[in-house]
Every structure is written in C-alpha cells, then in structure tokens.
C-alpha cells in the first residue's frame, strides 16, 4: 500500500526542488562584483574563513543530545501503545524518564550545559 504515492511524491519532490534551481538559474539577472561572494551581502564584515577549530566543549552538547535522542525513540512506541495499558504504562515511562532526568540534573550541576 502507498508505494505508488511514495513514488509520485519522490518525483514531485525532485521536480519541485530541481525546477526551482533550474528556473532561477535560467532567468536570474547577472551582476558580478566581489560583494556577491561574501557570506553576507550587507552587515558585519567577516573575519577569516568559516573553517575554524571549535571548542571541545561543544562536543558535549552533541553527545548529550544523542542520548536524549535515543530516549525519544522509546517514547514513540510508548505513545502508540499507551491506550491499551493505561496507568501502568504511564508509571513505567515515568520511572524511565525520572532516571534519565537524574542525568540531566547531573549535567546541569556539573555545568556541562553552560554555553561558553
């Protein structure tokens, strides 16, 4: 079921994204000056390149995000099945979330969430 519509959607998406690029490439006015190559045409002047080394601290955010991402995956089947189980399912997920919340509290206390 639905594979035909998926195929239609695939080609429709391809067409819309492609058509916008091709049509704008065909009809856009051309003007050449160095300002056009700047990341921002108006605003603050950029300093250096965009490919700089980031602080190690940012990696921590990505790691914590990944762990909560995994937690989110478990919420999905839970949300679908909760109707058949009622309060028990609610309590089970509550325990699950409280244990994970301890991790968030720990991260907060340690200052891992501080944006430096």
């Amino acid at each position: 079921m639905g594979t035909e519509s998926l195929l239609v959607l695939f080609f429709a998406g391809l067409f819309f994204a492609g058509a916008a690029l091709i049509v704008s490439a065909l009809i856009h006015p051309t003007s050449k000056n160095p300002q056009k190559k700047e990341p921002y045409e108006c605003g603050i002047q950029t300093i250096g390149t965009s490919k700089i080394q980031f602080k190690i601290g940012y990696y921590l955010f990505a790691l914590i995000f990944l762990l909560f991402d995994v937690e989110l995956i478990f919420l999905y089947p839970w949300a679908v099945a909760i109707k058949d189980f009622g309060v028990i399912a609610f309590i089970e997920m509550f325990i699950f979330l409280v244990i994970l919340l301890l991790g968030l509290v720990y991260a907060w206390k340690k200052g891992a969430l501080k944006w430096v």
Partner: protein
Amino acid sequence: MKAILFYIFSVLILACGIFTVTSRKIYRAAIFLLLTVVSVAALYFLMEYTFLGVVQLVIYAGGIVVLILFAVLLTHDSGSLLPPLGVKRTVATFALTGTGLTVFLYTILGRKVEPGSGEFNEPSVKMIGGQLLDLYNFGFVLPFEAISILLLAAMVGCIVLAMKFSKTMN
C-alpha cells in the same frame, strides 16, 4: 512499483556511499554519508519496517552524523583537502572490501532461500510498544527500565570525560 523504488534507493545508497569514501572534502563526505543513511531509512520504510526506519532517521541521520560533523569541526584543518590515497592504501582497501564482499556473497548464495508458507506480520510500532510495556505476558519492562540506567551511565561517563578534557585544554 516497489521494485522501481527499491532500485532508485539502491542506486542512491551505492552512489552516495562511493562519494562518501572518494570525496576529498571532509564536509562533503559527511553530507554524502547523511544521504546514504537517509536512503537506507527509505529502504526500511519500503519494507514497512516503520520503527526501524524511524530509528535510522532519528539516531543515525539526526544523531550520529551530527556527532561526526561536530568531530570534524573540532579538528583544526577541516577546510583543507584530504591527502589523495597512495597505491598501497588503495590496494589494501580493495583487498579488504573485496574479502568482505566475497565472504558476504558466499554466505548468501550458499543458502537456499525459499519463500515461507506462513503469514508474516511486520512488527508494527504498536506491537513493539505493547511488548515493551507489558507486565505479564513475557513483556520487556525490566530491560526497558534498565536501558534508562544504561543511558544515564553513558551520560555521566561522557560528561566526566569531556569536562576533564576541556579543563586540561583551557
């Protein structure tokens, strides 16, 4: 109809996979990896393994690739081209992947695959959720709660390690 979609996504997976390993710009390699992962998710959806597809999208496309991009951003010369592969490395890579492919094909082609006779129901998200929360009929409540402790341990571990590391860096 399914066959057409399958071939489209297979070509996407193969092409993006090849671009991932041959691209000399590391950001492009990461983006091609993202495309590969998304195409694999599309194959899962095509086989109606909805939950697996969602996991693939959320964890791999949303999490792992972002983590890899972050790791790339942490290196100091991420903007420069990667060095071209020497003959030695190319030969070694071909030998390794060739061996892997041979073993894989040998195992698959050595087996006789016959279509099953019984009705097969794809595990729906509702079934997975039911099994996860069931207290009585061989459910997986205890493993489910144990997972949260595992995640907690992972979180505490990465905070401890990363904080120690960033303190020595500053």
